[in-house]
């Protein structure tokens, strides 16, 4: 969940130095008083230049932020429910917007169906400290959807199999 998706107005072109900075920090920022100076030393740049490049990448949206990525299970958010909904195609955009505005929905997307295995076209992720909390949030979503919804389910995650976030290849 450390990556979001395109705003796609204009693609920012990563130059070779930006790429080096990303490669140097994608597994983590140096935990020292001045991480920009430490990175600069590695790459032959001044701390000011490193900082300016990070600022530019953040302004362009290439970097959303420089932040802590928690293991939500270990924070007590043990129930991670992917609620999925079968919404009439003519109502999906409107319903998606309304569901996305609910404060407890962390991600909300329209995605394709794969019949006959998968009927659901609206995905809304909710997290809770108990199954009841997730179910209560799902029923609030259901109330918003009304009769545009022809079925839903909640997929709970039972194990994180991998969580590395987006990585650039070192090639």
């Amino acid at each position, binding site marked *: 969940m450390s990556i979001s998706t395109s705003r796609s107005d204009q693609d920012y072109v990563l130059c070779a130095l930006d790429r080096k900075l990303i490669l140097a920090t994608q597994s983590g920022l140096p935990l020292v008083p*001045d991480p920009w100076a430490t990175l600069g030393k590695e790459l032959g740049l001044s701390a000011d230049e490193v900082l300016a490049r990070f600022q530019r990448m953040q302004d362009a949206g290439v970097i959303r932020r420089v932040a802590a*990525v928690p293991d939500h299970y270990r924070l007590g958010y043990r129930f991670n429910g992917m609620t999925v909904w079968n919404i009439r195609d003519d109502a999906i955009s409107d319903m998606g917007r309304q569901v996305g505005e609910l404060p407890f929905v962390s991600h909300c*997307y329209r995605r394709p169906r794969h019949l006959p295995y998968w009927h659901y076209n609206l995905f809304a992720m909710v997290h809770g400290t108990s199954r009841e909390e997730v179910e209560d949030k799902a029923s609030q979503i259901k109330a918003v959807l009304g009769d545009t919804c022809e079925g839903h389910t909640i*997929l709970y995650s039972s194990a*994180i199999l*991998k969580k590395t976030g987006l990585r650039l290849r070192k090639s």
Partner: protein
Amino acid sequence: MSAVTERQPELQATPQFTDAEKAVINRLQVGLPLVHAPFAAVAGELGMTEEALLQILQDLLNRRILTRFGPMFHAGEMGGALTLAAMRIPEQDYETVTRKVNGFDEVAHNYRREHELNMWFVLATETPEDIARVIAGIESVTGYPVYNMPKQEEFHVHLHFPV
């Protein structure tokens, strides 16, 4: 680390954090200011020393409360692509398939979920064309179909976990 990190939610105790740890977790999910001596700036906000902040942060990473501290990238803006994909894997093959799927660098996260489609992963690639290539690769290595579910519309993305 084993391929399948089994941590049944029901078996986990609710974690206890000190007030200082809570403050660091909550503040640093929002983002580090892009200034010189950024940890000192955050430490000042939180009323602790820079040294204490760095120590708590390192400790939270060591305990794997935090999986990472660093830049959070936006694949679309980098000219790359993202998709969500799912697979239906019989129990007897689950661990083997997990290892094979996780072996692809493009698999950014992978979750086991309780459904007929029981493996859900995010692919992040440097070019849009790579998505189809990686999906074909996963299908060929595992022998199971991959259901690709790229987002068609995005309504909201906002993820913070207050403690």
